[in-house]
């Protein structure tokens, strides 16, 4: 009765293996190493230093959104509107600055408020109606993609926004959201910094704050969480606003690196974010996963999408690879979770 666990102490190697198996990122790290080695072998230019910048840039554009989407999935919900919300955020910023002939910083600020409101709308609708997040965000996804096109045509007359490159504030906005610098032969985009910063902050929040504990609990067993006093509804609304905040960062990057925004963009990207999170070890059912895993998932995306280009293959193969990775990663994750949930 006194000792409920086995009496034998595990050896160091055993406990290390056990600790590793308990990490949500395990499958993703193995997968990332595999695709990296694979493309290093089949694509000659892949290992050049210059390629690294390109791969990291591709990873970061997905990774910035994969971080909050992973947090949201750990919290037990989806956001299908995340892809078009990026475009909405860019459109609001661009069109507000242009129409009001305001400093672009004003547009950036207005865009932040609007985007956060969109995220909060998703979250509040979810906790008020208690409908599945799949339905609610599918609804906002469709509404936003319609609004993006409709309002842009109404205001600009075309499907894209006007150039704002010559407007006041543009250069400094560009420095923050779309600058890049060169170290040796590697060209590094500022999005990589945003991405890594978000991963660090999200990991800190998840593992070392009360909010993080609540996110895991809200996804893992909301009733139990509520019963011990965790503000589950507030946690979920917070997660949706976090997705919106990152959509704002991505949207501003889009705007200030290309100067114009195509209003039809972003559709389908929500799945890339979810795939990165799932490959990174997030469970579809919530309660398990990590921000670092989502970053590894995004890195796999970057390596695969650019690796195929460097190998001079038809880019059509990309989705095949992505699908295969997704299936393998999910199988591995399910296996890990069964181990975690199974009785002793």
């Amino acid at each position, binding site marked *: 009765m006194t000792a409920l666990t086995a009496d034998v102490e595990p050896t160091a190697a055993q406990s290390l293996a056990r600790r590793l198996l308990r990490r949500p990122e395990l499958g993703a790290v193995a997968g990332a190493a595999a695709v990296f080695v694979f493309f290093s072998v089949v694509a000659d230019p892949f290992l050049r230093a210059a390629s690294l910048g390109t791969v990291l840039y591709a990873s970061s554009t997905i990774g910035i959104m994969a971080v909050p989407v992973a947090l949201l999935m750990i919290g037990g919900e989806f956001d299908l509107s995340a892809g078009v919300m990026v475009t909405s955020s860019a459109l609001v910023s661009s069109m507000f600055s242009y129409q009001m002939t305001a400093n672009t910083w004003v547009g950036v600020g207005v865009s932040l408020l609007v985007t956060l409101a969109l995220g909060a709308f998703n979250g509040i609708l979810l906790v008020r109606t208690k409908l599945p997040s799949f339905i609610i965000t599918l609804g906002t996804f469709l509404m936003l993609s319609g609004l993006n096109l409709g309002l842009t045509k109404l205001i600009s007359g075309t499907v894209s926004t006007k150039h704002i490159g010559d407007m006041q504030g543009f250069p400094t906005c560009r420095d923050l959201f779309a600058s890049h610098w060169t170290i040796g032969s590697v060209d590094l985009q500022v999005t990589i910094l945003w991405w890594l910063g978000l991963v660090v902050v999200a990991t800190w929040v998840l593992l070392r*704050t009360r909010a993080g504990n609540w996110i895991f609990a809200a996804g893992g067993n909301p009733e139990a969480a509520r019963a011990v*006093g965790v503000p589950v509804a507030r946690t979920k609304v917070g997660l949706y606003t976090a997705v919106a905040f990152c959509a704002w960062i991505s949207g501003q990057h889009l705007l200030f690196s290309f100067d114009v925004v195509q209003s039809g963009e972003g559709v389908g990207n929500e799945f890339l974010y979810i795939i990165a999170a799932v490959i990174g070890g997030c469970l579809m059912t919530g309660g398990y996963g990590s921000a670092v895993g989502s970053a590894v998932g995004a890195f796999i995306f970057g390596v695969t999408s650019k690796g195929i280009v460097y190998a001079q293959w038809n880019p059509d193969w990309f989705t095949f690879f992505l699908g295969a990775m997704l299936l393998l990663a999910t199988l591995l994750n399910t296996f890990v979770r069964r181990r975690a949930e199974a009785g002793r």
Partner: protein
Amino acid sequence: MTAQDQNTPEEPQGPLVALSGVSKAYGNVLALRDVSLDVHAGEVTCVLGDNGAGKSTLIKIIAGVHPHDSGTYTVAGTPVRHASPREALDHGIATVHQDLAVVPLMPVWRNFFLGSEPVKGRGPLRRLDVATMRATTRTALLRFGIDLRDVDQPIGTLSGGERQCVAIARAVHFGAQVLVLDEPTAALGVRQSGMVLRYVAAARDAGLGVVLITHNPHHAYLVGDRFVLLKRGAMAGSHLKKDITLDALTRQMSGGSELDELTHELSRTPAATGPVAATDPETTA
């Protein structure tokens, strides 16, 4: 902070929690009618009843999930009307639900402190006091005789009985004065049930008032001091342990007069009535 500080089983005052004439209706359905019960420090009050007797409605009222419609609910003599589980918790009433007590994939120590996490540091550096959380979890469980070598394991890897015990130890650690246990032994085998009942007794001995909801009179009689029987939302009896035997309790619990009827019905001779096969061996007994 822990309940050990107020270890005074012989409390001169009245009950910690008292319900008197409490009723609750869901729409037109009267789920609970005129129910009274007392919970004293260092005692176990058992609520017994069949499925649909109103046990879960009663537990929800005590736990603060639903407020009561009429009657009085007092905590340490003060009338209360809880609007949320949090309010009940603030009054020292902790509830351990049957199957929603824990988050299976979270480590034991995170589960232990869920909703009441200690923090240190300030501003953006405000963070969980992880070392304290781990160490406290270990010692709090040890006090209940649960020796976990690894508090980092997901709580889902523990057995059902162990999980109930962690939830009980948790409530005691956070200074609960009244512990409400919803069918803690319902899904468990004999050995695991024994383990849980032992911790119920340990909580009682630590000076807590315990409300044990169950449909098993044998488990109730082992640890109970008071027994409240519910039947179709109303009280069917209220007894002190000294006034009732296990047999009488079992009998009342299983329906008393209804059981007589059932006995009669089942023992009819095959010749007298029935489609029952004449060779049924039970009927000759």
